[in-house]
């Protein structure tokens, strides 16, 4: 095993469910398994972002104003492709290098994701928990700043 961190980043259509994730990650599953069994990994961390019924921050009405709390049924994510995928991968490499991570996998949805479904998954493997937690926080902060993905609400009737 070499010393490069294992990186994978992708934007996929629809929610991130186990079937979609398996399909996407099958090609890297052996490499990821090798990292996690190498004896070097002491911590794995997995974050899932899920659409909430009262999700409202960052969404916009036709007026341009931020929506008040109002139940929704789904969010629609618009991804500026291929820039969004490139930014996601570049962010993954930057964070893995800065925090000394051993593996980082980032998946983000485009299109419609209903309440209770997952739109974002980030998994990190590292020697200790500290760098996994710090890297995860930094990744999500920069994702929300630098990856060209926008969401719009689908309101409940």
């Amino acid at each position, binding site marked *: 095993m070499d010393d490069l961190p294992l990186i994978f980043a992708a934007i996929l259509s629809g929610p991130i469910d186990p079937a979609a994730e398996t399909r996407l990650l099958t090609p890297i599953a052996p490499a990821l398994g090798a990292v996690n069994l190498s004896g070097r990994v002491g911590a794995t961390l997995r974050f899932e972002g899920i659409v909430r019924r009262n999700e409202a921050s960052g969404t916009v009405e036709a007026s*341009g104003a931020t929506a008040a709390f109002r139940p929704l049924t789904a969010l629609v*994510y618009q991804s500026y492709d291929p820039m969004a995928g490139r930014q996601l991968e570049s962010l993954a490499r930057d964070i893995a290098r800065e925090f000394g991570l051993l593996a980082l996998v980032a998946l983000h949805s485009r299109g419609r994701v209903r309440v209770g479904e997952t739109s974002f998954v980030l998994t990190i493997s590292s020697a200790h928990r500290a760098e996994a937690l710090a890297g995860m926080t930094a990744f999500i902060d920069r994702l*929300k700043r630098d990856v*060209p*993905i*926008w969401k719009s609400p689908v309101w409940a009737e």
Partner: protein
Amino acid sequence: MHLDVLIFGSAAVVAKADRVRVRLGDAPTLADVARVMAEQHPDLAFALTSPRFAVNHAFANMDTRIAPTDEVALITLVGGG
């Protein structure tokens, strides 16, 4: 020259479109694009006070010069995650 600037998020909602056309002088910079775009599309001025642009799918500085064949996108506040 004419340039179609891609817009997203709140800018697209306000403009009810996914791009707007801007009429520019020759060899404009992104700073020129932002200034002229705010003049010609005042409803988008809110998104152009401190804008970020991507040129050909990469973030670009405001002094970047634009050719008519470049793909230019206004990257308003994003909301992934």
